[in-house]
C-alpha cells in the first residue's frame, strides 16, 4: 500500500517535471528566436499555447486529485519552467563563456523583461489545469476506473 502510494507520488513528480520542462523549453526557445531555432516561435503565441496545453494535460492526468493539490502541482510545474528560463538566460555565465551578460551588450531591462514575461506562464497554466479537470469531469464516471 505504502509502496503504491510512493510509486504514485514519483509518477506525479515525473508529470510535474515533464510539464516544467515542456513549458520552460518552449518559452525559452521563443525568447531566443534571434539564435535561429529550427522552428521559429513567437513569444506571445508560445506563452499562450504551450502552458495552456500543458495545463490541460496536467488537469487530465490529475483528474482524481483535489483542486488544491492540482493547483499546487501546477504551481510547482510553473516554478520549474521559470527556473529553466532563468537558467537558459544565464547559460553563458553558468557555462563560463562570459563573466556577465552585460558583456554581450544586452541590457538589464531586456533581461528583466524576458523573466517578467515568463511569469505569465503561471496564470495561463493554472487556467489550463482547471480546463483539463473540467474536461475530465465531462466524461461519465463509468469511464473512469475507481481509485
Amino acid at each position, binding site marked *: 500500500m505504502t509502496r503504491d502510494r510512493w510509486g504514485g507520488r514519483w509518477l506525479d513528480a515525473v508529470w510535474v517535471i515533464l510539464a516544467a520542462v515542456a513549458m520552460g523549453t518552449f518559452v525559452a526557445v521563443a525568447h531566443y528566436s*534571434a*539564435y*535561429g*531555432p529550427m*522552428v521559429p516561435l513567437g513569444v506571445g503565441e508560445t506563452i499562450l499555447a504551450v502552458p495552456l496545453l500543458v495545463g490541460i*494535460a496536467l488537469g*487530465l492526468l490529475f483528474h482524481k486529485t483535489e483542486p488544491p493539490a492540482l493547483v499546487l502541482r501546477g504551481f510547482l510545474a510553473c516554478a520549474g519552467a521559470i527556473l529553466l528560463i532563468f537558467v537558459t538566460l544565464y547559460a*553563458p555565465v553558468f557555462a563560463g563563456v562570459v563573466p556577465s551578460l552585460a558583456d*554581450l551588450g544586452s541590457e538589464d531591462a531586456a533581461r528583466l523583461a524576458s523573466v517578467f514575461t515568463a511569469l505569465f506562464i503561471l496564470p495561463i497554466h493554472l487556467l489550463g489545469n482547471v480546463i*483539463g479537470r473540467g474536461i475530465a469531469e465531462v466524461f461519465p464516471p463509468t469511464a473512469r476506473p475507481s481509485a
Partner: protein
Amino acid sequence: MIWFAKVAAAVLAVLTVLGGILWVDVTGRYLAASQARTLVGEAVSYADLRIPTIASEDARVTVGVLFHVANPSPIALEIRTISYKFYMDNLLDTRAFVEKADSIYVGSSGFFSDTEGQTVPAHGEGWIWANLTVDGALQPETLSRLNRTFYDPPKYFPIIDAGMVYAIAGTSLVDRVLDIVFVTQSGVMPYDA
C-alpha cells in the same frame, strides 16, 4: 490509467521531447554565439600592410591592408564589412593624434560585401584584403600626405583605425567590433623597396 489520461501523458511527453530538442539546439547556438561575440574583438588583426614607393606626384597608388580574422568560437562568422580610416603619421608634428588627425588623414576604405559576406569557419581563420587607392592626379594633397617617410632607408608610419561588422552564421545576430587600431613603432618599409 484512463484513456484521456493516457492521451494527456502522450501529449505531455511529446511536448517535452520536442521542447528539449529545440532547447538544446538554441542553447548550443546561444552559447557559441556568446563566445564568438566575446572573443572576436581580440581576434581581428592586421596581417599585412603594403604601401609602395611613390614614384611621382601624379602616381596612382594602391595601399593594401590585409586583415586577419581568427574565429576561436565554435560557430562560423560572416564578415559583412570592414571599414577603416587611413592616416600617415608625421613624426615632425609632435601634437597628440587627436589634434593632428585631420592633417594626417589620407582616406577611408574597406571591404564591403554586397551579398552574405566572407565566411570565417568555426575555429578557423580568414584573410581579407581591403585596398585604398589614392590618385595623385586627382588628389595631389592626399598623395602628399601619403608620401611621407622618415629615416634611412625610408619608412612609412601609418595609423589605421578600423571597424568590422559581422553576422553570426545560422542566427540573425549582427554585431560589430570597433577600434581595431594599427600603430607601428618601427615603421613600415615600402613593400617594393
